[in-house]
């Protein structure tokens, strides 16, 4: 009974995620590669959610005891990878924003200095 409930919640989450991925792609805010990655990811999620016994094929190879352990272990690994990739992406964006802000500030300053000196030359 409890497992059924979890499966239903899993299905609802995956449906919402599918619609978000589709909406982002439609808005052109997700690249083609990212779209394929997320569709595959959530498809895999739905398959394992509907047929949890499928994990029993890989459980023995990782010596993890039960299907649930396998799922939890893989979920944590995926979360770590995602957090790391998000972190590096944010770091990269931060660097680019800083550079952009500084370059713009310096360029505006140089322009204002040039305008001032040309005004002085005119007078």
């Amino acid at each position, binding site marked *: 009974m409890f497992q059924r409930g979890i499966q239903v919640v899993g299905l609802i989450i995956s449906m919402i995620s599918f619609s978000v991925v589709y909406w982002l792609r439609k808005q052109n805010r997700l690249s083609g590669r990212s779209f394929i990655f997320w569709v595959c990811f959530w498809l895999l999620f739905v398959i394992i959610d509907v047929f949890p016994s499928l994990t029993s094929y890989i459980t023995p190879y990782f010596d993890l005891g039960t299907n649930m352990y396998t799922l939890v272990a893989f979920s944590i690994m995926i979360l770590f990878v995602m957090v790391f990739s998000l972190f590096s992406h944010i770091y990269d964006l931060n660097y680019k*924003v*800083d550079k952009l*802000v*500084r370059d*713009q*500030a*310096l360029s*505006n*300053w*140089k322009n*204002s*200095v040039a305008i001032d000196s040309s005004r002085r030359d005119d007078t």
Partner: protein
Amino acid sequence: MSKIGVVIPAHNEEKSLHKVIGEIHEVLENYEYNIFVVDDGSDDDTMKIALRNNAQVAHHAYPLGVGGAIKTGFLMAKEWNSDIIVQIDADYQHDPYDIPKFLKVLDSGEADIVIGSRFLENPPELNGVRKMGIFFFTRLVNALTGYNLTDITNGYRVFKAELLDCLFFSAEKHWAIEMTLLAGKKGLRVSEVPIDCVNRETGLSQFFNIATFFFYPIRALKQIYAAYSRGSS
């Protein structure tokens, strides 16, 4: 005569900035100098006040932090071909009338970089945690560089502009540690001069933000790593 570039990072400092700039004009009237204010994404009239007081102003559309603003100011001073760079806070915690003391030490050839120290004379009243942080990082940087400094986090600094390339730190926040470590790595001579640090009358300290306060040790350790992981060039 040496050209002096005064770099002032400022974030929402409209109330104190005119006083700082005004006094710098008075102190340096016999020198060839220029004042470079970096308005770090202020919401108030910091930029207008700076322009009204005959300073050169670069405006960050988004706040990059004190280190980020100082870096922009350094680039402005370099563009102007400064020989000496004076770095001073906009909140009037640093007395502009101390600038000649710094210049005297630099001119004497005793040091390549001169840093103000609040602890050589009349130590200020700071809260315990902050004092402990300054004490810890000062000891750590001294141990790593062989210097005998007393106030490593002080932002009142004067140095030769020719050293700018090797002192150009990567941090946007908490840059002082990295800058001093880079100086130590290059074997530069660093001296301190005693300064009186006035408690800020207006505006907010960076330590007002609890996240900044909490992350300070982590970021400071990151700057130590950044200084030592940089190539020797």
